[in-house]
């Protein structure tokens, strides 16, 4: 087996060097390969969520009253709060990537922590929303059993369970993405603390940043479609 020279990217003071993988010519090729791969992964995320969105639009067209009535049960303040939280986290993530590209370790870790806290805050708000919905029996599919005045409200609506199927499925899959994102950001904080990410090697921060923006992007569409059903 032949070994070429060990190729490293420039390492600023106080950081760990990054070795370019053996099958790449240079750091530029490595970075752009990994990045293209990640954009393709994000494209699969778009297609995956796109399927549920397509189903949403079709049933919204078939039973518009169901969706309006269902949307009225969701709390606009809570949804708006979560939107602001996610937008903030998206901004801090972008700033974190920027700090990484400038080899500002402290700032980077700070921004990543804020992003992580925002993600946690999002889930806390979601928890309160979910428990309220469970209490009222506003559950998907066969678990649909609205209590009290909710039963009356939905008495004359076609397939009220369907809106909540979409609500739970869409926010559920999105929530799983938030949790996975939190794990990824935690890993960044852990490894970033050891000085692994810097101007010569920002790809992991960059890519997980892109992932986090996609999570935000999907919420940007979910929020008006679920909470402000037109």
């Amino acid at each position, binding site marked *: 087996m032949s070994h070429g020279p060990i190729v490293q990217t420039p390492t600023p003071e106080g950081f760990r060097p990054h070795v370019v993988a053996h099958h790449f010519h240079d750091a530029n090729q490595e970075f752009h390969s990994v990045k293209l791969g990640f954009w393709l992964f994000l494209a699969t995320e778009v297609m995956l969520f796109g399927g549920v969105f397509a189903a949403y639009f079709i049933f919204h067209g078939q039973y518009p009253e169901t969706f309006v009535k269902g949307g009225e049960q969701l709390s606009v303040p809570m949804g708006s709060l979560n939107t602001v939280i996610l937008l903030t986290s998206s901004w801090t993530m972008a700033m974190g990537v920027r700090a990484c590209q400038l080899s500002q370790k402290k700032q980077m870790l700070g921004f990543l922590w804020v992003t992580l806290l925002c993600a946690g805050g999002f889930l806390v708000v979601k928890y309160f929303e979910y428990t309220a919905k469970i209490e009222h029996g506003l559950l998907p599919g066969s678990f649909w059993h609205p209590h009290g005045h909710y039963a009356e409200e939905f008495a004359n609506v076609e397939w009220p369970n369907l809106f909540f199927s979409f609500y739970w499925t869409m926010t559920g899959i999105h929530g799983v993405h938030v949790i996975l994102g939190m794990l990824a950001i935690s890993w960044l904080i852990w490894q970033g603390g050891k000085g692994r990410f810097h101007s010569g090697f920002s790809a992991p921060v960059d890519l997980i940043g892109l992932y986090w923006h996609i999570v935000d992007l999907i919420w940007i569409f979910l929020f008006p479609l679920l909470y*402000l059903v037109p």
Partner: protein
Amino acid sequence: MSDAHAHAEHGEVQIDKSLHAHVCSAGTFLKVYVALLILTVLTVGVAQFHFGSANLLIAMAIASVKAGCVMAIFMHLRWDTAINNIAFLGSLLFLGLLFLFTMADFATRGSIDPTMSQHAEPPAQTD
């Protein structure tokens, strides 16, 4: 790739400075963040009025502008390579095909053959 590597001895450490990522200014990020917040207020505000089916269009238009800001600036697509733009935005095109044909089906059921009605009557619910 570069000539420097070609003559390197085994085990030698080379420093490769070929990588140059785009760094966006903090001011731009802040402006986009504020714009996103304003648009969020706008979308909630507009939803309080009822314009009929136009509401859906307005909501989607605002969401698309927000998404465009996030993609172009936060995700650096504006400064990214053409292929990365194509890889990501191309998926929207194919998603459009999924939307187009499935919705065309539901929108035109019964248009040529009236026996194929919009959708079957639901069976009587048990509870």
